């Protein structure tokens, strides 16, 4: 038996010993990236546990002392002390210069200066020095202070000294800091409140990048403004504006004059001294700059004329046929002379044969300059082939208030690939190199996440920062990477379609022949086929493409035979080891993990093998897998393993032998972007960066998975193109469930006749057959019960049945280029219509309908949940009427073929005649005929828009745009039901501004869920509050819901988020115990690796919140966080603050607990091993007191915190992904683990919240597993839908069963009947069995194996006959696969 169950990956049973010996080796645990061991004298350091930073634990260790200039006393000259705080380090050298030359030349005063980079103020001792410096300062200068936490610190410190200071000058910053401005009688303390015309200028544009730009405008409209001011004030205001001009002019000369002017006018010691200064030297606000051009240009034609006369470059570069790259630069870097990194990029591009048009702007809005300088004013065509922004900022708004629609509009006009690279701002080069996180989280939020909303790609760190001078410098390898990639994108615009080479990459995960072409919700081969047909029509060379999609599969997985018998897929290329090493510069680095090439993965022992098939200029290849899926050692102990040689060989082949112009990763998702490296901001040694090399990466990604899509964007530079999930349908009812619903309807009509009791008895017995007795408390059969009780029993069963019936599930698999028909969209529209959208003044259809019969929909939901028969019935009627009305509407907007005809036209004609409105017609024959017509009209207008978007097909169109080097419109990813802006698909998916969550609305919904959860737990737990809840934070969930689950955590511990002026959430405050009305519940937060990557700032926020709550002076019985933190601090001998560590995740650059891989590959011994895996990979904590240290292992605290958990909890974020659809839900479930850790050994309650529908639910885990099994695995509608997708459908069925076993393993919450019914559905049914076996024998074998495993591991008790049959089947299918004929 054992041998039958074990997969080829299972190790011999002596494992536990090896594991314990291995676990001693820190080396294995911590060296997640390889280290060459050859002749490095200090190679011993690889054994050390190396923290990302030392010292203060912050992100930057630089000190302001390098910026301090103290003049030598001479001639009794007075000293003027200047203290400045800036975001832009580029001012440092310019200011130092200015002060040094002043001290050399001036005969009136000496200048002492010290500067702080805003990030340094996080450090307590630096902050103290700052405050101290202010005490005897004369002048304070601040600029671009937009990080709230730090802005408040600056404000507090300067405010204290403001009256004493001679001058306070703050240039564009948060209003709180701006208000500090003071120059004689000129003050900004009234900013935002005063009605004076002066301040109106600042207020004029609340939206967009207005603030900084109106300051610039102010500078320009100076005389006009001064007219409004009284004359004495006019002088001070004039000097303020001059100061701004000097500052924006940034050169040392300007700054010298600036300091002369300010000190001469305002420093008392210099009163009466005549100090001459020159007027500011003004540079263009925006224009074109080239380091060797004689001047700046504000006309692109003039610039190009000059370019054409350059003697230093050859004809080719000057001529019209060179690729042209537009660069976007920050003016302040140019005027302060800190432009080495810009010059590096310009030189690199020109040396590689590309012409450059480097444009700059001084404001924060680059959309105007982009349109002005990069688009030909006459032809409206772009003058460039691709654009690289070197600012790192969003196109409109910089670090202040962004305006993404405006940016997108400008970029759509430009219509070329748009890359946003970035220089280091908050970290020095070495700090970035040392950090496993990579980029500083604030920079990630400002300069990676925000540009993504503009459609920006490829966040490559191209410049470092020198700790002493603060100057930017090129990172030569990064600059090379950036420039070659920019040129490759530009070439896509220039090359002809027939020439273009495309490498389509498919996945095979877990590695098994039955899995080639795996992608969530996607029929991959049918999609590839449809894409290739379309490209062929468009002029691409796909010579030899077979006639059908099936033939395509056969070609790639070798031949028909290969489904059954072949060791390998089709080999497209054999690469000798020597060739491999020549093509792959990082090959030696892989040897630490994988030994000498070729190794045994993707190899024949001599050569490395690239699997796939080439048609003309298109190569379809199979991406190798991680390679350690079946290796429990690595699953357990490696933070991450490097790619293996076969993996590297694949990408070397694509880039250097096939010479792809672009690679198309096909579907959600592969392994490339999850390879080890920094989280964000790749360096030369990060694998995703090295692997993708210089190939433009286009990636088809499921629209509902924005979080992982974002990882692909950031780590493998993907231009993601969203695809739709398959059309959802209602689960419907089948078999016994259908009978039940019929019985209930006859009960309703006959209940008052004498047959009531009899029907109830049938209902009870049928419900028991359907295993509903675990979900609803059923009386014994034959027991006499009162009419009222009968209603309640029936009501409860009814409510369960309706829940199952109306569940949405995606049926079948999506094919690219085949949007759903209008009628297929009905179920989706019904769900879209079920949500209130207050922001658009839309009332949900159920609410309108309930209102028409005098009910409040919320009350109906509550009543239905409780099983009140009449409410259940009313809800059913509402649901039915909603479907009917929407179907009637959709029918009217489609033609005979079922295609949507112009919805807009139809709608207006419909809307013209009230009586003809199809929904009114439909509703007139129901009890809801009085529904509010105006509300309905608003709603249906919105639904009409949604319908148009659902059926729009832009997936192929966007792919073609990307391949032609055009701009792909960005759009949010997420759930189309919640956020119809996700539609139409075919957009470059982005996440959201990480600092924008949780929103107020999310907080509102979170409260409801938390309150229900706590109520539910109290009911199940003898009225006691849970002390601790262990929960999981998912990236996608938080994107889709704008931070609902994040808000849930905050509400559990009783704090609320506080937004700053720009609506960004960087702070929390405690809710009083009175308001909370219950104790603060402790939490153990397990963040997914993806959440960690996307929302490290929010982890920081959570950790601060937890620590704040632990330190509140409150009785411990009212504050469980404090209670536990005290206990843990005592037990571990640490501070309470440190003990209050509750926010955990994986180590940086590593994802998942690997429990999923172990389960999928059956490569685990016992549950203990899975739990060890979970603990060893998930116990890395984020510490807000040492954020720069990244993720630090704190296993002891993790275990102690988990041991207090009374409940475990997760959120379901969308209807189409539920518990058994993916492996990651059980992968992160700690239920059984908590039981093991608890002192009393009690199993915690396990809950799942479901906010996918208007009526949010908190269910127990086992209820949810049952619901899932009933609606998917056991539902004929679902599995027949899958079977219709053939080969890939069988795999989907098998995956559900495997994931169900996963739940047994991690939580033990799967009922026996689920396996039993699955067995009778798929195995006992001969017909079904034969279909499965012949369609995809490899997946069928895995299915049989999983059944046997469920039994072998004790999760499924069944008859010996059943087991015998499975064993027999296993060897049959094995023989078939091995090709042994009987």
């Amino acid at each position: 038996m054992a041998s039958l169950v074990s997969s080829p990956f299972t190790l011999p049973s002596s494992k536990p010993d090896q594991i314990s010996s291995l676990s001693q080796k820190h080396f294995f645990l911590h060296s997640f990236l390889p280290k060459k061991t050859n002749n490095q004298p200090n190679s011993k350091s690889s054994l050390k546990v190396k923290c990302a930073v030392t010292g203060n634990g912050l992100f930057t260790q630089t000190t302001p002392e390098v910026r301090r200039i103290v003049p030598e006393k001479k001639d009794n000259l007075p000293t003027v002390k200047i203290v400045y705080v800036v975001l832009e380090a580029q001012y440092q050298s310019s200011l130092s210069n200015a002060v040094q030359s002043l001290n050399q030349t001036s005969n009136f005063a000496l200048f002492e200066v010290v500067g702080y980079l805003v990030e340094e103020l996080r450090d307590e001792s630096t902050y103290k020095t700052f405050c101290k410096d202010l005490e005897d300062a004369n002048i304070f200068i601040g600029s671009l202070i937009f990080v709230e936490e730090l802005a408040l610190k600056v404000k507090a410190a300067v405010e204290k000294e403001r009256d004493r200071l001679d001058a306070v000058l703050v240039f564009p910053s948060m209003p709180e800091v701006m208000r500090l401005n003071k120059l004689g009688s000129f003050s900004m303390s009234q900013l935002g409140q005063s009605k004076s015309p002066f301040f109106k200028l600042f207020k004029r544009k609340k939206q967009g990048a207005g603030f900084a730009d109106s300051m610039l405008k102010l500078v320009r409209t100076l005389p006009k403004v001064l007219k409004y001011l009284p004359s004495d004030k006019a002088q001070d205001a004039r000097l303020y504006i001059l100061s701004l001009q000097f500052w924006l002019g940034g050169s040392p000369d300007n700054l010298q004059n600036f300091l002369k002017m300010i000190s001469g006018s305002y420093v008392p010691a210099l009163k009466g001294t005549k100090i001459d200064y020159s007027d500011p030297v003004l540079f263009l606000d925006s224009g074109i700059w080239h380091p060797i051009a004689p001047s700046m240009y504000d006309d692109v034609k003039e610039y190009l004329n000059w370019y054409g006369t350059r003697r230093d470059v050859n004809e080719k570069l000057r001529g019209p046929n060179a690729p042209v790259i537009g660069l976007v630069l920050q003016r302040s870097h140019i005027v302060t002379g800190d432009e080495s990194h810009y010059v590096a990029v310009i030189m690199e591009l020109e040396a590689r044969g590309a012409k450059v048009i480097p444009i700059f702007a001084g404001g924060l809005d680059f959309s105007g300059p982009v349109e002005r300088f990069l688009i030909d004013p006459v032809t409206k065509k772009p003058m460039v082939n691709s654009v690289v922004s070197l600012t790192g900022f969003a196109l409109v708004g910089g670090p202040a208030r962004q305006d993404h629609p405006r940016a997108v509009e400008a970029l759509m006009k430009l219509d070329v690939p748009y890359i946003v690279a970035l220089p280091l701002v908050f970290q020095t080069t070495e700090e970035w190199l040392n950090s496993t996180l990579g980029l500083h989280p604030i920079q990630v939020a400002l300069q990676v996440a925000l540009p993504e909303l503009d459609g920006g790609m490829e966040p490559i760190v191209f410049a470092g920062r020198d700790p002493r001078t603060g100057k930017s410098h090129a990172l030569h390898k990064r600059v090379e990477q950036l420039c070659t990639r920019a040129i490759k994108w530009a070439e896509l615009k220039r090359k002809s379609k027939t020439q273009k080479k495309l490498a389509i990459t498919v996945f095979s995960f877990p590695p098994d022949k039955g899995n080639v072409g795996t992608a969530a919700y996607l029929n991959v081969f049918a999609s590839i086929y449809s894409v290739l047909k379309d490209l062929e029509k468009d002029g691409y060379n796909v010579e030899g493409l077979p006639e059908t999609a099936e033939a395509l599969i056969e070609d790639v997985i070798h031949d028909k035979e290969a489904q059954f018998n072949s060791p390998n897929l089709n080999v497209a290329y054999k690469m000798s080891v020597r060739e491999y090493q020549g093509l792959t510069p990082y090959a030696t680095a892989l040897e630490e993990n994988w030994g000498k090439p070729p190794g045994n993965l993707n190899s024949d022992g001599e050569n490395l093998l690239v699997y796939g098939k080439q048609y003309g200029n298109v190569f379809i290849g199979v991406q190798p897998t991680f390679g350690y899926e079946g290796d429990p050692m690595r699953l357990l102990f490696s933070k991450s393993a490097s790619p293996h040689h076969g993996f590297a060989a694949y990408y070397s082949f694509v880039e250097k032998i096939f010479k792809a112009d672009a690679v198309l990763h096909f579907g959600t998702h592969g392994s490339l972007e999850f390879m080890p490296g920094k989280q964000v901001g790749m360096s030369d040694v990060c694998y995703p960066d090295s692997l993708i090399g210089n190939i433009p990466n286009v990636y088809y990604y499921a629209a509902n998975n924005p979080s992982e899509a974002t990882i692909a964007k950031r780590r493998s530079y993907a231009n993601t193109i969203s695809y739709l999930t398959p059309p959802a349908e209602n689960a419907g009812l089948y078999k016994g469930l259908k009978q039940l619903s019929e019985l209930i309807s006859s009960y309703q009509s006959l209940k008052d006749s004498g047959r009531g009791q009899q029907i109830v008895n049938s209902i009870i017995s049928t419900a028991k057959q359907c295993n509903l007795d675990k979900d609803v408390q059923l009386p014994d059969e034959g027991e006499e019960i009162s009419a009222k009780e009968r209603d309640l029993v029936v009501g409860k069963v009814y409510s369960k049945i309706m829940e199952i019936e109306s569940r949405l599930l995606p049926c079948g698999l999506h094919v690219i280029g085949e949007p759903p028909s209008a009628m297929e969209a009905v179920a989706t529209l019904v769900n879209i219509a079920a949500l209130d959208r207050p922001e658009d003044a839309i009332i949900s259809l159920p609410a309108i309908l309930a209102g028409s019969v005098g009910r409040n929909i919320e009350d109906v939901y509550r009543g239905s949940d409780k099983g009140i028969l009449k409410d259940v019935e009313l809800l059913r009627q509402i649901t039915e009427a909603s479907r009917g009305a929407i179907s009637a509407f959709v029918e009217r907007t489609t033609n005979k073929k079922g295609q949507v005809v112009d919805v807009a036209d139809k709608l207006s004609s419909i809307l013209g005649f009230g009586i003809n409105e199809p929904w009114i017609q439909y509703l007139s024959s129901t009890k809801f005929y009085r529904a509010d017509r105006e509300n309905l009209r608003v709603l249906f207008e919105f639904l009409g828009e949604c319908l148009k978007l659902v059926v729009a097909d832009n997936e192929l169109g966007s792919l073609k745009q990307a391949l032609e080097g055009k701009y792909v419109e960005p759009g949010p990813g997420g759930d189309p039901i919640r956020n119809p802006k996700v539609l139409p698909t075919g957009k470059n998916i982005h996440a959201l501004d990480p600092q924008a969550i949780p929103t107020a609305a999310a907080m509102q919904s979170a409260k409801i869920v938390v309150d229900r959860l706590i109520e539910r737990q109290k009911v199940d737990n003898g009225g006691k509050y849970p002390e601790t809840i262990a929960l999981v934070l998912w990236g996608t969930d938080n994107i889709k819901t704008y931070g609902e689950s994040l808000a849930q955590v905050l509400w559990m511990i009783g704090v609320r988020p506080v937004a700053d002026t720009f609506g960004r959430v960087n702070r929390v405050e405690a809710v009083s115990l009175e308001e909370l009305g219950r104790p603060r519940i402790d939490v153990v937060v397990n963040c997914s690796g993806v959440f960690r990557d996307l929302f490290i700032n929010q982890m920081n926020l959570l950790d601060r919140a937890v620590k704040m709550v632990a330190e509140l002076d409150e009785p411990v019985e009212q504050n469980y966080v404090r209670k536990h933190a005290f206990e843990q601090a005592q037990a571990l001998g640490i501070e309470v603050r440190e003990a209050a560590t509750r926010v955990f995740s994986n180590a940086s650059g590593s994802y998942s607990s690997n429990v999923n891989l172990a389960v999928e590959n059956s490569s685990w011994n016992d549950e203990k091993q899975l739990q060890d895996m979970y603990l060893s990979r998930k116990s890395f904590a984020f510490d807000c007191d040492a954020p720069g240290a990244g993720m630090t292992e704190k296993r002891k605290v993790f275990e102690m915190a988990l041991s207090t958990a009374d409940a475990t909890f997760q959120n379901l974020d969308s209807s189409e992904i539920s518990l058994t659809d993916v492996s990651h839900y059980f992968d992160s479930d700690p239920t059984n683990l908590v039981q093991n850790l608890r002192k009393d050994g009690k199993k915690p309650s396990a809950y799942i919240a479901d906010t996918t529908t208007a009526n949010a639910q908190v269910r127990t885990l086992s209820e949810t597993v049952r619901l899932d099994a009933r609606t998917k695995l056991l539902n004929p509608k679902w599995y027949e839908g899958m079977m219709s997708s053939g080969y890939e459908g069988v795999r989907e069925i098998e995956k559900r069963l495997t994931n169900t076993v996963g739940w047994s393993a991690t939580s033990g919450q799967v009922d026996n009947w689920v396996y039993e019914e699955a067995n009778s559905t798929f195995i006992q049914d001969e017909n079904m069995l034969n279909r499965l076996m012949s369609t995809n024998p490899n997946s069928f074998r895995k299915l049989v194996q999983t059944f046997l495993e469920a039994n072998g591991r004790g999760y499924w008790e069944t008859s010996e006959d059943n087991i015998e049959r499975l064993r027999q089947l296993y060897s049959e299918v094995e023989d078939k696969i091995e090709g042994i004929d009987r």
Partner: protein
Amino acid sequence: MTTNSLRYLHHPQYSSLKRLSTSESIPPPPSSLFIRPSSSSSSSTNNLSSTTTFSLSSTTSSTSSTTSTSQPISFDALQHHLSTQNFRQADEETRRLLIVLAGEAAEKRGYVFFSEVQFISEADLIAIDDLWKQYSSNRFGYSVQKRLWQKVDKDFTKFFLKVGWMKKLDTEVEQYNYRAFPNEFMWELNDETPEGHLPLTNALRGTQLLNSILSHPAFEGQEDDEEEGEVGGEDGAVKGLRDGAKPLSNKFFKPDYSF
């Protein structure tokens, strides 16, 4: 060559304002990353031969407009510093010379743009290189650097490591950072000093300037006699070198296929 007048022509509104003072006129603050070019107050210009042909320029190879002014350039200061083993000064002087040789525009700017290297004559570069070699027993100099660079297949990271311009960081992953100028560089010639360590060329602005210097016709074929023996000893020396993608910049270069 016109400089600022153009701007005033195009933008009359600025005509009353002073011209942009770029940082070249100010003494640089201490800086790291190899080098920041020193200010070049010297106004000496060169008088170059105009006989060389330039790889990047297909226009006339005449450099007359940048080199129109008199005064042959003097290498005396360089020779003096080198002969007294004052490598720090020699290094500064070399950089200054390079800027001066590259032309008036480079002098104004304070650094050499990569495409200006072609305007430097073979003779001048060779003269500088010869001095370095002469006073370092052939351990320093551009031609020495070129040989090392070619040996690592023109991979600048490997080259920087070899000549000691980058240092290894103490991280789990093998990583390198640039050395800080001037303290982390070696200003003496002894057994510890890596071959090719001097003269330094700025990497603040990437590697194209150094690329242009090392690819200058002045250094073609010079390294032949020193080619033997060592090639291929490096782990990476065999990589990429043979894939043919590399332009053959040196007809005398003898590739070594041994492992």
